[in-house]
């Protein structure tokens, strides 16, 4: 009776159809380039004057050259400047999140503060860096102000000082990201069952104890997530130091980041070395990606239920405001 396999009602093909554009775009613009990047990292392939040298296979020579170069120093710079931004960022964000969600403090104008502190995140990093460069240049407004206020005898040359430059990069990273982190942490704190805080208050917890014994442990997954994404952001640090130091990582390449180094190789068309740098970055990023994946996944069980609620009230808020 059923000699032909009948056409089933199956919608599977639409699933494939709908996810196809994403995967094609990913394949073309990221995966194939990544494979090529890895491939050329094993080749001598660069431009010298108008002549293209290579590609000649050289095995791990590029990697050896890489580690013999200043690459480790740039990795150190990146980490230092990331820490200079991240440490104050996480401390300030935690404090602000605790304050904003503390019913006993009753802070007014929360929405205003949130709007203000998030704003720097949307600013073009290159323009922001350019602005800082202008403001903090040797005879820029900041030096003017400091000298005329009598705080300094002569202008401080921020951009010629190792820690001045690194400090400025850290400050900018801090300003750009602490608002974002605060909002994330606040959302996490507000996701905690309020009854828990009430119970703590009844049990006689001081605000400090509540924070360290209840809030912090409850938002740990989000903290991990913030840490890892911030590390990935740090790994990508480029626009700010690039513009601030005009791509030179001055003084004496102490503010040169890994991506700036990659950028230099790309501009000078040294594809072999650029490939080797990329592969190292890829390996670090891949490890961090795995951590993100597992944090999101382990969180999923507890969050699955919460997530449903997570969107609901705010979504309504969105609609009401619109």
């Amino acid at each position, binding site marked *: 009776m059923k000699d032909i396999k009948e056409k089933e009602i199956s*919608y*599977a093909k639409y*699933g*494939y159809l*709908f996810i196809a554009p*994403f*995967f094609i775009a990913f394949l073309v*613009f*990221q*995966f*194939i380039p990544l*494979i090529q990047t890895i491939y*050329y990292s094993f080749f001598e392939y660069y431009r010298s004057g108008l002549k293209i040298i290579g590609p000649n296979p050289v095995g791990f020579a590029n990697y050896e050259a890489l580690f013999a170069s200043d690459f480790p120093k740039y990795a150190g710079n990146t980490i230092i400047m990331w820490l200079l931004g991240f440490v104050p960022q996480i401390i300030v964000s935690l404090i602000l999140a605790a*304050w904003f969600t503390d019913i006993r*403090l*009753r*802070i007014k104008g929360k*929405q205003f*503060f949130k*709007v203000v502190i*998030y*704003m*720097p995140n949307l*600013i*073009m990093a*290159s*323009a*922001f860096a*350019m602005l800082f460069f*202008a*403001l903090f240049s040797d005879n820029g*407004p900041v030096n*003017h*102000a400091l000298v005329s206020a009598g705080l300094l005898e002569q202008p401080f040359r921020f951009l010629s000082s190792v820690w001045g430059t690194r400090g400025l990069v850290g400050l900018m990273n801090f*300003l750009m990201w602490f608002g974002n982190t605060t*909002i994330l942490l606040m959302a996490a704190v507000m996701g905690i069952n309020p009854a828990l805080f009430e119970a703590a208050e009844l049990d006689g917890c001081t*605000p400090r104890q509540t924070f360290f014994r209840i809030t912090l442990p409850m938002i740990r997954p989000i903290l991990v997530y913030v840490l890892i994404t911030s590390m990935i*952001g740090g790994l*990508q640090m*480029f*626009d700010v130091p*690039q*513009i601030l130091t005009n791509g030179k990582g001055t003084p004496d390449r102490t503010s040169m980041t890994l991506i700036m180094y990659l*950028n230099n190789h*790309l501009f000078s068309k040294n594809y072999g070395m650029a*490939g080797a740098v*990329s592969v190292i970055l890829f390996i670090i*990023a891949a490890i*961090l*990606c*795995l951590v993100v994946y597992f944090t*999101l996944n382990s969180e999923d069980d507890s969050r699955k239920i919460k997530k449903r609620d*997570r*969107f609901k009230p*705010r*979504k309504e*808020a*969105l609609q009401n*405001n*619109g």
Partner: protein
Amino acid sequence: MDKKPSHVRTVVAYIVLIFLTFLCLFFFYILVVNATRNHTQIQKGFSFIPGKSFIPNLKHVLNDANIPVLSGIKNSLIVSSLSAVLATYFSALTAYGLYAYNFKLKKPAFIFIMLILVMPTQVSAMGFINLITKMGMLNTLFPLFLPSIAAPAVFYFMYSYMQSSLPLELVEAARIDGCGEFKTFNRIVIPIMKPALAVQAIFAFVQSWNNYFIPALVISDNTKKTLPILIAALRSADFLKFDMGKVYMLITIAIVPIIIVYIALSKYIVAGVALGGVKE
């Protein structure tokens, strides 16, 4: 009885908040003020009172042949708008494909996207430049927005939103009503996803508007440059010879539109940040 310590804490909290607010706003205030002052005024020092050179500074910027601001704005607008549209539409489509359908590769596809959720694009930049050179897209705007079709972070946001706001029964109701699968997506799913699409469109737009690394590698033709490249060009020029009024004006042009849009939509955006969790 413990009214007092709470009082002190409130005062401390406000002081810190006001200081941070000052820190966030101060630089932008100086920026806008300096954009209205001329070079000599700026050199003399610092002022909280705006000057009268807004129009001259603007004219200087617009007339400088080395910094094609108008085409920069146009290019930035084209790239950012298209990025926003592509990223949101195709991420929603992908999320819907994985959310509403069952197929063999569903789980692997989902895991794969989650794994590359925060992978920086810089790591494949070298191959990317090579590839688009071969495709003849070097020095065009296409490589700046086409890759937005694959935006894992936007996908994740859309997927979470669907889990909370798009019951599958709706899709089934549409099926029974005789709505085709693609039509269901466009006529039922997209309208329901509107709040999520709006928030992510804003983020995608801003991200693309501010993007510097890839455009700087792809674009060398002056008429194709986007705003961040122009700003960078300003930095590499001989700075001391520069008209500072012009510098501040150009930065203002790059930043202020975003700030205005942000203030207008800040409620959506701040709520979106809290929801998203994931953002590059």
